[in-house]
């Protein structure tokens, strides 16, 4: 049984042996962003592209393209606020809610 066929409605008979997952990189499909209770907001005008926020994000939710950070990946950002603490230029602000 392929894993996409398994969801929260699946009967026990469909669960794979030991919950094994037979394909790679499936964690992308697991939207940890649903857990968020506060949300980082990117203030692009204040950002100096120092990229200090990128490696500290525990969920790899700050994508970088051609040396510049992009908008947050809200599908996976859990709203922990570490990036806000790290940003030296006040370019990230936490707001309440998703």
């Amino acid at each position, binding site marked *: 049984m392929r894993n996409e066929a398994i969801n929260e409605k*699946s009967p*026990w008979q469909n*669960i794979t*042996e*030991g*919950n*094994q*997952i*037979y394909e790679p990189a499936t964690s992308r499909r697991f939207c940890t962003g649903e857990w968020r209770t506060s949300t980082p907001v990117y203030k692009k005008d204040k950002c100096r592209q120092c990229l200090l926020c990128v490696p500290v994000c525990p969920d790899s939710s700050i994508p970088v393209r051609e040396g510049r950070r992009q908008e947050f990946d809200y599908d996976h950002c859990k709203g922990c606020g570490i990036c806000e603490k790290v940003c030296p230029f006040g370019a990230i602000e936490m707001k309440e809610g998703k």
Partner: protein
Amino acid sequence: MAIRERLSGNEAVAYAIRQINPDVMPAFPITPSTEIPQYVANDMANGKIDTEFIHVESEHSAMSAAIGAAAAGARVVTATSSCGMALMWEELYVAASDRLPVVLALVNRALSGPININADHSDSMGARDSGWIQIYAESNQEVYDNFLQAYPIAEHEAVRLPVMICQDGFITSHGVENILLLEDEKVREFVGEYCPAHYLLNADEPMAVGPYAVSAYYMETKRAQREAMIRAKRVILETAERFARLTGRKYGFFEEYRLEDADYAIVIIGSAAGTCKAAVDEIRSATGKKVGLLKIRVFRPFPEEELAMALRDKKAVAVLDRSEMFAAAGGPLGAEVRAALYSVKSRTEFVNYFYGLGGRDITVEDFKEVYRKLEELSKTHEVRDMYAYIGLRE
């Protein structure tokens, strides 16, 4: 033609391991199982097998490495006893829920404290809820035979569960007995090659083992795990049948010794069954009284129905436990056999004894006394002590 030898229980397990030549053995020494990895290491050093030995710093790591190797696709063996298995506790459950067919040679020894190195079943009985198949032996021959059947059961596609092959510390592990061994080729043919359908080292199928299961999945996962344990019953019997065709030695969930026509039955696990058989024979030939024995071989999965049918019509049954569970009631075997009898509405009289804790001896005379008390109980119908002791100073 079988090979006639004289081996200790530990030597018999090591002999079987050499014949099977598993891929990986992570192990940490602990009395009385230490000799098993020691003998296997000798065979590796002498080039008799190409098993990879992993030197670990604890039993926690031994079982962790066993899980990793089994997930990678290797056939894995380890050995331990007592507190060594207690240190594996967390991983025992993981091996079972990850459905990895690890085989553990367990040499039963009392758990601390007080610290004690002798035989009782507190280690494996404590792990009875971990999801491992548990198979026990009376003699060195049975240890060897059970070990050869372990992989075909564990790796069977309908099962995929870890198996614990248990024997009584020192009594069989260090006691030397006559034994019949199979030729290497016959063992290899019987056990077969291990070809898992999914494994981490398969480059063609990337996979994940042991993922987090939130409450929306955990219960279904546990139900599926239970199903594997239910299916194991059939596979255990089929494997035993195949083994009997090869060797003539027959095994089931339990052995019934002069039980069929017996009025009074003792239920026991492990080496003390041999002593009990002597008592049965002596009583029968001296008095003609119908006494018998039911020796449990497979405790997990628990053969509830079969056991209840074998005991339901007895006049009185005594279950002997070689471990405490501090329920301030009986022992684990007593509790489960009693529940099984209830499920078939048996009216048999029932008592539960503790014996042999921390290696305390049990004699033929002790067993005769139990049978005497069973006979008395069947007449008086008065249980004076539901949870009595054998060999306790009081």
